[in-house]
């Protein structure tokens, strides 16, 4: 199914972003190769969500660039990266139609979209909810549906912006299982999270942002065992960073 050409690696070069006269991200350099789970850590307002949105193309960089191996992260005319938001946006339709809509937007025929939607729901154990109005699902079910919806697009890379920050431990565990499964299936994940336990459970690589700067970029195990900067040490110890 996957095209031979890949949109990865993703390279972020000297990326800066300012709004309202305030610099929110400055001179970020990083590269995301294919496969693996990268966790993006940092205190509130560090620029985690902003970085994901810029990479996904929802915002235009002030300076610097987001470069995919294929222009725009598009291979064979289709965008090869998807995004899951902190608060899932559920269309006023059934769960199946929510997935179907995303696939139709990606250019699939009605029939093919329907088939792939059913496939995606079944894959993540959501087939029992297929006909339920998406907005009547529980928070955990909605987020699982949002991830299934993104996964149905068969992206090479998926951005996740604190996908479990509003969920209880049970729902969080289900989401983590889904993400581990996606990763095992070859999808590259870049996830912002506030949950340090989750970052340790899932993360293979850690990016640490503070006040719009990328302070650390290291294998997750190293980062958690021996953070290199005083800011990261304070962050991991639960101190407030200013």
């Amino acid at each position: 199914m996957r095209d031979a050409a890949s949109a990865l690696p993703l390279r972020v070069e000297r990326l800066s972003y300012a709004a309202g006269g305030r610099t929110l991200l400055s001179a970020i350099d990083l590269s995301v190769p294919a496969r693996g789970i990268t966790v993006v850590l940092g205190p509130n307002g560090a620029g985690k969500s902003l970085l994901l949105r810029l990479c996904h193309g929802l915002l235009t960089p002030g300076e610097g660039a987001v470069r995919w191996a294929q222009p725009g992260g598009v291979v064979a005319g289709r965008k090869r990266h998807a995004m899951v938001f902190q608060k899932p946006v559920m269309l006023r339709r059934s769960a199946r139609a929510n997935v179907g809509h995303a696939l139709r937007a990606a250019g699939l025929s009605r029939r093919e979209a329907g088939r792939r939607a059913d496939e995606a729901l079944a894959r993540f154990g959501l087939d029992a909810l297929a006909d339920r109005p998406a907005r009547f699902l529980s928070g955990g079910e909605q987020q699982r549906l949002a991830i299934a919806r993104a996964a149905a697009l068969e992206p090479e890379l998926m951005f996740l912006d604190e996908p479990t920050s509003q969920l209880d431990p049970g729902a969080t565990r289900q989401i983590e299982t889904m993400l581990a499964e996606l990763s095992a299936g070859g999808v590259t994940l870049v996830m912002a999270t506030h949950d340090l336990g989750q970052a340790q459970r899932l993360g293979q690589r850690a990016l640490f942002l503070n006040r719009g700067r990328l302070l650390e970029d290291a294998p997750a195990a190293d980062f958690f065992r021996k953070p290199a900067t005083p800011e990261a040490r304070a962050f991991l110890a639960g101190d407030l960073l200013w």
Partner: protein
Amino acid sequence: MNDIGAAFASAFWMIVVADPTFLEIVGLSLRVTLSAVAIAALIGLPLGAALAMARFPGRGALVVLVNALMGLPPVVAGLALFLVLSRSGPLGGLGWLYTPRAMIAAQAVLVLPIVVALTRQTVEDLWAEYREHLASLGQTGFSAIPTLLWDARFSLATALLAGFGRASAEVGAVLIVGGNIAGFTRTMTTAITLETSKGDLPLALGLGIVLLAVTLAINAAAFAASRIGLARAGGA
């Protein structure tokens, strides 16, 4: 009191015997108003959605203008259209004046601002919620309009009903451009006006009762449909 009793009797009688003149008046009224609402919807829904999403200088003024046009007096709309459709007017060649077409056009002009204004408001709110997700799927700008209109469908049904209400209740515009010609351009409202001035109050009141009943039935049906749809689709 006598008049009211006679009015109900007259309304009842017209319905029971299916008086052809009466049925013709009701039929024309419905045809004109429903056509006008359909035309206004066809133009107004996409236009309202586009206005919700577009950002250009003078947008605020345009929004205020459209909102204000919701209160356009029907006689003024009728007069304007009369000037356009009269023999020496720019569209005089169409020969629409004093025909049902002119009446449909006049009512469409009255309904359009309602549809545009209410669609603009509804879609703007929905877009704020959907924007990032749709952009993520590549639906930026106007390409998101079909998704937004579909997801706002139950709120928009109410907007169309408001338009229907305005069109079915108005008399000034259809009277001016239609001319209230018996058997050709006579609607319920123009007939009521005529019968009242002739002093046939029971017939006028009878028509009024029917007009109310039709409006009530259409609103009830739409309400039921949107209730059911809402429960299926998951909230407005």
